[in-house]
């Protein structure tokens, strides 16, 4: 497939090159359509959110009220903090105008006149790059009052975060944007009814919005034929860990994980076996290396395999990997990032970390395995936002699929295994 989101055209990030390659013509096309026709096209394309939840984008847009006495907002989520995820930064750097064009089209479809792009604070260099693109787009009349001679106006503002994973959760993002602690909100009410300052708001991921001009260019029907039928389109897959060529690769959805690892990412160094993969960022359930056969990067396939697409951040671990260290590090992350509102998550992540540290040092007790599972089960589903689930799933799946690794670290250990020595296999 020819790359659609990140085509290899030199200097595509500059407005002149972007225009010379057909840039902003889809905005012109959209402005000649009725807003609901644009939404209908996105609905028909089958595009599903690329921020982790895979929710149908067009459907989400229809939740916005047709008529609103209050202002309505489009928020773009560029918080990108899920461990293993580094794809939106590629769009900021190499194709920022595609994001801006998609944002204006989306705002037009939903009748929003203000667009906020929330970007994690650590990406300050990339914030400056996107700001330059926004300034250039505004100077050419693609943003601001009466866009391209139409009656539609929209402003585009960048908003810098300050270091908090939880602000990638959409309601926490809105609170953060309002200048508050990034606490997730109880839902309902959903953002389309009660979002920023209580006004109708839609939050979409950066990559999701970048797909919008592509849909209009190809047409919804052709777009829907790319990749997996129920989860179509191009997808940016970030591959990290034990591969020869880590990086972000654009491909259609539905490519086999083994093909992504072997063909795109150059295989595992030293030809080692794959012990495990995390398919979609640290929150998604870990898979055993011996269960990857036939599993593809799309929502249905990964669900059937007992995991999920998440943000398509594929983390590969070779046969020598100490998975107890991996799960301890991941759990430390969620403990650090829990916002502290809900007791199960605030306390539970700490308890899980404490138990895991015992295993890490080879001092786990046999009953700790079930205790750990019990704590994880009591976090899952019992919190305001999905961070609780995100902390529980890696632990639950690690115990389910690699119970032997825990048993080998129990005090006294399994037969023939010394205390505290990492176990392969």
């Amino acid at each position, binding site marked *: 497939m020819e790359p659609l989101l990140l085509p290899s055209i030199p200097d595509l990030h500059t407005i002149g090159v972007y225009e010379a390659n057909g840039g902003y013509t889809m905005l012109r096309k959209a402005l000649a359509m009725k807003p609901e026709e644009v939404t209908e096209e996105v609905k028909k394309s089958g595009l599903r959110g690329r921020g982790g939840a895979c929710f149908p984008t067009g459907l989400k847009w229809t939740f916005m009220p047709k008529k609103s006495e209050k202002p309505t907002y489009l928020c773009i989520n560029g918080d990108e903090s899920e461990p293993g995820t580094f794809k939106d930064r590629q769009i900021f750097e190499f194709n920022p105008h595609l994001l801006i064009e998609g944002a204006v089209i989306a705002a037009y479809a939903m009748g929003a006149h203000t667009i906020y792009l929330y970007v994690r604070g650590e990406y300050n260099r990339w914030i400056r790059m996107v700001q330059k693109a926004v300034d250039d787009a505004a100077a050419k009349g693609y943003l601001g009052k009466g866009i391209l001679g139409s009656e539609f106006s929209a402003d585009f503002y960048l908003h810098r975060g300050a270091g908090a*994973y939880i602000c990638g959760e959409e309601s926490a993002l809105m609170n953060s944007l309002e200048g508050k602690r990034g606490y997730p909100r109880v839902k309902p009410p959903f953002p389309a009814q009660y979002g920023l300052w209580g006004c109708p708001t839609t939050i979409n991921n950066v990559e999701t919005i970048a797909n919008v001009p592509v849909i209009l260019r190809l047409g919804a029907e052709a777009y829907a034929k790319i990749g997996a039928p129920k989860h179509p389109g191009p997808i940016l897959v970030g591959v990290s860990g034990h591969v020869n060529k880590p990086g972000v690769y654009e491909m259609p959805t539905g490519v086999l994980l083994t093909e992504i690892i072997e063909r795109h990412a150059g295989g595992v160094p030293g030809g080692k076996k794959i012990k495990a993969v995390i398919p979609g960022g640290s929150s998604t359930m870990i898979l055993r290396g011996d269960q990857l056969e036939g599993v593809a990067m799309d929502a249905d396939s990964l669900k059937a395999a007992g995991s999920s697409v998440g943000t398509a951040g594929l983390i590969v671990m070779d046969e020598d990997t100490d998975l107890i260290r991996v799960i301890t590090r991941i759990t430390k992350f969620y403990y*650090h990032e829990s916002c502290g509102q809900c007791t199960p998550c605030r306390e539970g992540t700490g308890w899980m970390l404490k138990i895991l540290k015992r295993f890490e040092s080879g001092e786990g007790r046999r009953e700790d395995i079930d205790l750990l599972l019990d704590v994880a089960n009591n976090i899952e589903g019992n919190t305001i936002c999905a961070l609780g689930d995100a902390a529980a799933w890696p632990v639950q799946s690690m115990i389910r699929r690699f119970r032997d690794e825990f048993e080998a670290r129990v005090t006294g250990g399994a037969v023939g295994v010394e205390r505290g020595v990492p176990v392969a296999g």
Partner: protein
Amino acid sequence: MFSEKSLQRLEELKSRYQQPQAVMLEALWMWQEEHGWISEEGIAAVAGNLGVPVHDVYGVVTFYTMYNRQPVGRHKIEVCTNVSCMLRGSDRILRHLQDRLGIAPGETTPDRRFTLVEAECLGACGGAPMMQIGDDFHEGLDPDRVDRILSKLA
């Protein structure tokens, strides 16, 4: 006190939002860029500028990890040790920095040149192991490369 330029910029930014409090994170960024860290004076200045209680600003400052609540060195080195970096040897990078600088994570060198911090995932997993210094990402690190990068910093 904010500089005259920052005060002007803050007023300009407030026009982008329904409520002035939305400028909170940016106001704190500005204070940190001007003063290096966010003191009690900084918290009071932001509260005064936005017309919100001091405790609201305090709540925000303590929630986000990028605000320095105490003075830091000229270069703040943040080493990612999350899973993708860990798999590719971030331990070795962190240990090398500790040995070279003679400080533990969270500490600043006596000459106030460097502060060392262990960071959560910085979104550069494809270039692991990595560290961030100021706004710059340094990827594909090994101890020699770390040395070369540090030797270029004043």
